[in-house]
């Protein structure tokens, strides 16, 4: 099974996980949440993310789901992920990406899961009134 770490500014990720688990079921293993608090020093952030990545990296792969491209979670995680095989750093996390990751991380291999998460995340962004309602 592919492991997942959600890393966000504040408690956004914790609530995303709670909502996604309500939809696809509780994740008993292979999942970690890291909430970056403004009270943490950059050193502390590095330490927490690095420890989680060391802990969670396995043979099937590791997917980091991060909120903002260019934010602290990404800036810290990216250099740490550089030399790890089968480790994806995916930004712009939304709930469809999390449910997709939970639902398919056992069935799909690493490369396919990464594509699936990004596809489902992109597809979630839409203006449904113009899409579904006839004028």
């Amino acid at each position, binding site marked *: 099974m592919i492991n997942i770490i959600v890393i966000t500014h504040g408690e956004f990720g914790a609530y995303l996980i709670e909502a996604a688990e309500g*939809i*696809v*079921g*509780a994740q*008993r293993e292979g999942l970690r949440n890291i909430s970056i608090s403004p009270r943490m020093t950059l050193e502390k952030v590095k330490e927490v993310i690095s420890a989680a990545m060391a802990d969670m990296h396995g043979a099937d792969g590791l997917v980091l789901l991060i909120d903002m491209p260019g934010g602290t979670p990404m800036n810290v995680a990216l250099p740490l992920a550089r030399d790890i095989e089968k480790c994806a750093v995916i930004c712009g996390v939304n709930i469809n990406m999390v*449910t*997709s990751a*939970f*639902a*398919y991380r056992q*069935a799909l291999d690493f490369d396919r899961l990464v594509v699936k998460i990004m596809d489902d995340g992109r597809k979630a962004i839409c203006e*449904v009134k113009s*899409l*579904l*309602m006839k004028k």
Partner: protein
Amino acid sequence: MLILYRVDDRLVHGQVAEGWVPHLKADELAVVSDDIAGDELRRAIMRFATPEGVDLKIMTVAEAAVYLPEAQTSAHRVLLLLPGLAEALALVDKGLKIPALNIGGMHYSTGKNLSIGKALFLSDEDCAALKTLSASGIAIEGRGVPSDSPVDLMAAIAR
């Protein structure tokens, strides 16, 4: 074949699209509802909520009574979605053989005063319907998503 018979008043939603469909490798969703079959916007919304690569069929109870026995022996992996117990009773009345019925979502409305778990709220009428279905030989389980532990609903309403 019919791989799951499910009662869920939200029909096609996240628990089904992201939970049951990949878990059971369903390639078709069959929704049985006279209301939705006649409502263009709700049909469009439901099609939108259906995962890519999965067929969606929306039919009336009368159409389902003809279609579902065919689906039981087809090569498709069909997940049946019923909005309530009334549709299950109607299909059984019309001769459909249901081996097991998953009760996934029956949300609260007035009179549904017996709550079981997070998403099951039953009225006296619902309990009577479940007893009728169970007595006809259908195994009844309460379960929202595949990874939840099934709840023995008949024991829960026996009290």
